């Protein structure tokens, strides 16, 4: 369980390395850009919702869903942050007892 074991190979810590984090950031941004780009052929061929039974009218704007995702998520995070000012309380707010025991159906190795 401890990592002091000499025989074990070096611990897998790829996600902790600054290099990997940089790579993941780049991949994410690339994915965002690609999701924009792949829409273009569909828009040109007017095929974007060709198999849907209805015409989308005003929502046939390039990048509409990307903007929706971005704006909606930003608003929700800001809303949560703002409400947090009023709603967040210390964990002992309700005067509940600190848990004196762990659940019974738990690994025997775990100690409180």
């Amino acid at each position, binding site marked *: 369980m401890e990592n002091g074991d000499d025989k074990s190979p070096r611990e897998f810590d790829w996600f902790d390395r600054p290099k990997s984090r940089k790579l993941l950031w780049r991949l994410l941004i690339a994915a965002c850009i690609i999701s924009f780009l792949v829409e273009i052929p569909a828009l040109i061929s007017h095929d974007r919702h060709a198999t849907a039974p209805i015409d989308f009218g005003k929502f046939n704007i390039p990048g509409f869903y990307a903007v929706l995702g971005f704006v909606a*998520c930003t608003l929700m995070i800001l809303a949560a942050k703002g409400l947090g000012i009023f*709603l967040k309380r210390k964990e002992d707010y309700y005067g509940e007892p600190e848990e004196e025991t762990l*659940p019974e159906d738990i690994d025997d190795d775990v100690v409180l």
Partner: protein
Amino acid sequence: MTTLFSDFPPAFVLILGAILVPFLPKKIRSFYVIALPALAFVNVYYLQLDGNTKWNLDVFSWLTNGEPLELLRTESPGAENPEAGYKLAKAFGYIFCLNAVIAFIFAFYVKKSTQHVAALIYIGSALGVAFAGDLLTLYVFWELMAVSSTFVILARNTEKAKRSAYRYIMIHLLGGLLLLAGIVLTIQSRGSIQFDGFDFATEQSAGTWLILLGILVNAAVPPLAAWLPDSYPEASVTGGLILSAYTTKTAVYTLLQGYAGWEPLIWIGCIMSVYGIIYALLENDMRRILAYSIINQVGFMVCAAGIGTHDAISGATAHAFCHIIYKSLLWMAAGAVLYRVGKSKCTELGGLYKTMPLTLIFGTIGALAISAVPGTSGFTSKTIIIHAAEHEAAHGHASLWWAWLILEAASAGVFLHAGIKFPYFVFFNKDRGLRPKEAPGTMLTAMAILSFLCIYLGVNPQPLYDILPYGVNYNAYTAGHVITQMQLLMLSALVFFLFLPMLKRTSTISLDFDWLYRKGGQLFYKATDKSLNSVNAATRKGVVDGFIPRLSSFFTTAPSRILSWLVTPVWLAQGLNSAEREKRRDQLFERGRRGAFPIGITAILGVVLLGVLYVFSWFAR
């Protein structure tokens, strides 16, 4: 076997089977509780609900105008779609049993039998509700579900769980009473105990609204939702997993069966989907994040019930089916972490990918599925609901564009709070030096099965579409659907990592509507204590301690006072000084207190009185 099961309530397989559980040795018991829901699954599969059932019980015919209790819902021959109602019941029956089988595989390690008994009765009564054909049967199973689920919470056996279970049962008893009141009124006004769709245009009444309110308590609609994130995370590792699937989904089933097309549900569903996200973003406890995420997901289904078209009902059924699978998967991943680490707060977890990689992979598949990433079951089910909203909006119900917009925004938010936040804060984020072992084999097996289902139904949803109440003419995999969904999700992910500093977890809780009965209850107690008890104290001081003793002393001392007042002039005439007069007065009072005047004085006073009377009578003449 098949003939037996073609007409047998699957609820009884689990409820009767549960009775045996405590008497079995541990090794056999773990297999037995897996086999039991599997048997119920076979039972559901073979059910032939064509109207010939011996499970129409006449026992309460005096109460129901001769109508039998229908333990098994059958086809309704007169209706436009005679099969829809029972296909809906069957679809929920399948997933209830399937989920139970896998949950009990996960729970293979559980040593005590109490939780298994409660869980089996709970799941059985959920099946009972799904197949109930009349309102009375529905009510009985509904209450059985509330009681047995309380025992599932209690099985954690800690003080916190006890308190939480108490609040849980109080809210559910309230919901049950609303339901009962509604059922009584509805039976009275309709003259029938049948449970089939209530029509929004013609059947709005106090009765149907009360039933709806009772169902909405179980569907966890705010402000009546706080019981869910309050209680589920207080249950045990397995308890939380089992609870997450049944109560809310049974409520969704009842809404789809009874309240399709009730417009207010559209907006209630929209509120739920956003409310769940906001609170999940604020939460620190991983299992509480998942609890709020249930409210968010059920919001989509409630909205679909409000839209009420065939596509919407089928979409909600498909979504409930897939939701139970990926939500169980997420609860299992969280449960495995809790099992190995003993912690469930994001501020205490992190970096677990190093030693629990399989749990991470399975949990991530669940997280991707709940976010409706193409290739997972969320994409082939949830999008049917959004498609149905779109379709209605484009065909005359322009206000539904708002519902559609909120559902799309909420889809983006799901990726934020459940899709990324849960795996990120538990498995990555900061290495806190935790090096737990990988989850046990049975847990991994259960998670692997659910992960497979998430992907299988995402790639090949047709088997699921075939069991839906109405045929689905929907193809998720068009270029447009996939591209727009990926845009929505990728940009949501970008927002998550851009705003990561703002999302940093704090070791806090967030106030929800349960404040009203947790703090509000205390305040109410204090307020009534202050107001009523102060009236009580004032009354005691004024009346009991003040007025009554004075009244009593007045009556005991008044004759002596009057007497001393009368004789003072006599004493003055005798020339007694003030000290002697004081002494005489004390004697007088002492005699008055003891009632011990010498007989001579009494006689003299009698003569005086007679004299006075004589003088009066002389004047009166």
